[in-house]
């Protein structure tokens, strides 16, 4: 794939803009359009956050000015929401960890060894990315009910591996490719085995890439709603599912829902800023030829 996504260290290559394009009017129009697009993107999010800060009796209030309060957040922390937040952290973290441990060596092999089934495995990884979630959910649900993994963070971590493992194998390959093979060869001449050369030389060089991969795995697991909706009840309920629990009898508890939504969204936004460069190649894992 072309462009900045794959090369972790490629600088932005902006092409010089011919001055004839830049009539003042055009520039002004462009800026106005950009502003409009920006408002389109940001307004809905800002609105959610401000609802979470409104006092309870004013959640649906008309006034634009109000005294912000953290009441809804406080209420969340006194409820079971905290527990579901932790469940999200644990299941996403666990799945990310296992995917890295198992997937990184495999990615290295895929990168360095040309074997016959290589193309088939790549196709396979791609097809797991394409398959609709419902196709995984039904068999996993039926299997989990037999072996008692329903409503456990373990079960959730396992199903998150279905996409995380493929993601790691794909992402890490491109990082390994950027490591000059001569470095490994030098180590092996010094008597290192293949895997010890990998551990000593290659892996440290790709540490930033690994961190980016980990963050992507975490985000994708963290964002999951569908699997958690079906595979958890009480013990392992994750934060995204807990949010819809506020659709309640006395009307929806908009304030709490907004606060919960804001809390679930914050880590993702922070992480996004960190891994922006690799976001797209993560999302299209393994499907683009280069």
């Amino acid at each position, binding site marked *: 794939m072309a462009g900045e996504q794959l090369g972790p260290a490629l600088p932005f290559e902006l092409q010089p803009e011919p001055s004839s394009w830049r009539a003042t009017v055009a520039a002004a129009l462009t800026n106005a359009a950009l502003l409009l697009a920006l408002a389109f993107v940001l307004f809905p999010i800002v609105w959610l956050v401000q609802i979470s800060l409104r006092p309870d009796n004013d959640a649906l209030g008309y006034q634009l000015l109000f005294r912000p309060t953290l009441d809804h957040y406080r209420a969340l922390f006194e409820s079971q929401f905290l527990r579901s937040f932790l469940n999200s952290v644990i299941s996403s973290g666990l799945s990310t960890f296992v995917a890295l441990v*198992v997937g990184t060596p495999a990615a290295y092999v895929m990168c*360095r060894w040309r074997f016959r089934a290589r193309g088939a495995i790549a196709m396979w990884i791609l097809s797991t990315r394409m398959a609709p979630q419902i*196709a995984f959910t039904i068999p996993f649900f039926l299997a989990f009910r037999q072996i008692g993994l329903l409503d456990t963070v373990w079960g959730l971590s396992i199903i998150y591996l279905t996409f995380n493992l493929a993601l790691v194998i794909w992402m890490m390959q491109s990082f390994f490719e950027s490591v000059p093979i001569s470095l490994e*060869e030098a180590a092996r001449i010094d008597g290192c085995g293949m895997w010890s050369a990998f551990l000593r030389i290659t892996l440290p060089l790709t540490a930033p890439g690994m961190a980016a991969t980990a963050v992507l795995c975490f985000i994708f697991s963290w*964002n999951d709603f569908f699997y958690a909706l079906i595979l958890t009840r009480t013990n392992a309920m994750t934060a995204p599912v807990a949010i819809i629990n506020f659709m309640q009898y006395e009307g929806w508890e908009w304030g709490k829902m907004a606060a919960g939504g804001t809390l679930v969204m914050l880590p993702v936004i922070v992480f996004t800023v960190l891994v922006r460069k690799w976001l797209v190649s993560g999302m299209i894992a393994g499907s*683009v030829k280069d």
Partner: protein
Amino acid sequence: MQRSVPRPAVSSIDRQEQLAYLSGLLPAVLLLMVLTLAPAIYLFVVSLTPGTPTIPGSLTDFSDPTQNYVGALQDQQFLDSVWVQIKLSVSTVIAQVLLGLGVALLLHRRSRFLQALRTVFLIPMVLPPIVAALIWKILYTPDISPLHRLLAALGAPVSSLITNADTALWAIAFADTWEWFPFTMLIILAALQVVPDEPIEAAKVDGAGPLQLFWYVILPFIRPAIVVAALFRLIDSIKAFPLIYVLTSGGPGTATQVTNYYAFTQAFNYAYWGYASAIAVMLTAGVFVLSWVIGRRQGASAYGR
């Protein structure tokens, strides 16, 4: 997939080396088998049964293996759901490509500020989908929506879009476009950045205006990227779930009941596991056929080199 693999210096990999490679690869391959291949086979097996928990033994009853597939083809709700799916997928892909292209062109300028701005434009796409759904539930609920209020204050009240059969699907498509146009934008932006200078310069020397420049020079370069982005959005649009679950639950009536959602209700509201599996099998097959067809049409040179 033909990555340009750096060739190892040793041309004949000895047995020991092969074993070492295998030891790194096998755990992942085995795990992938358990995680993806086994469920796929099981899904297909279940789809051949009338499996539902209220009929004992039904999960292993293979007496009429095609009943679910035959039943689905006679099920008006299922057929309708496919049509709804097509409408939603096609409209959102088109909207997202156009909007993504537009914003990408706007952002494709040399400026530190714009570079920072790009990250802001990514936010909708990385938001937890349930949060995106919640946001749009707020914006679409007349009682609390700032947009509905604004329109009412301007003397042009609009009735709820998500409870009106004529607008519900388009309201969802709009929200989906908000959520996912950053994806197409990002891919197109990346492609714009590797458009070579020479043809642009040459065209300008020939006196091409901005529109001609875009249409005849830039677009051909970025078309493969657009196709890839569209393909991905098309496939992912089939998975759209939280928006529909939170905004309409497939309603009003069945106006927004896409196939994925229908399979979900069959499997997890009524526990028709066999029937839902059959739908899931068909859905998966549809996705694969779709990506294969588009992939083949575009050929190996679809994108990049």
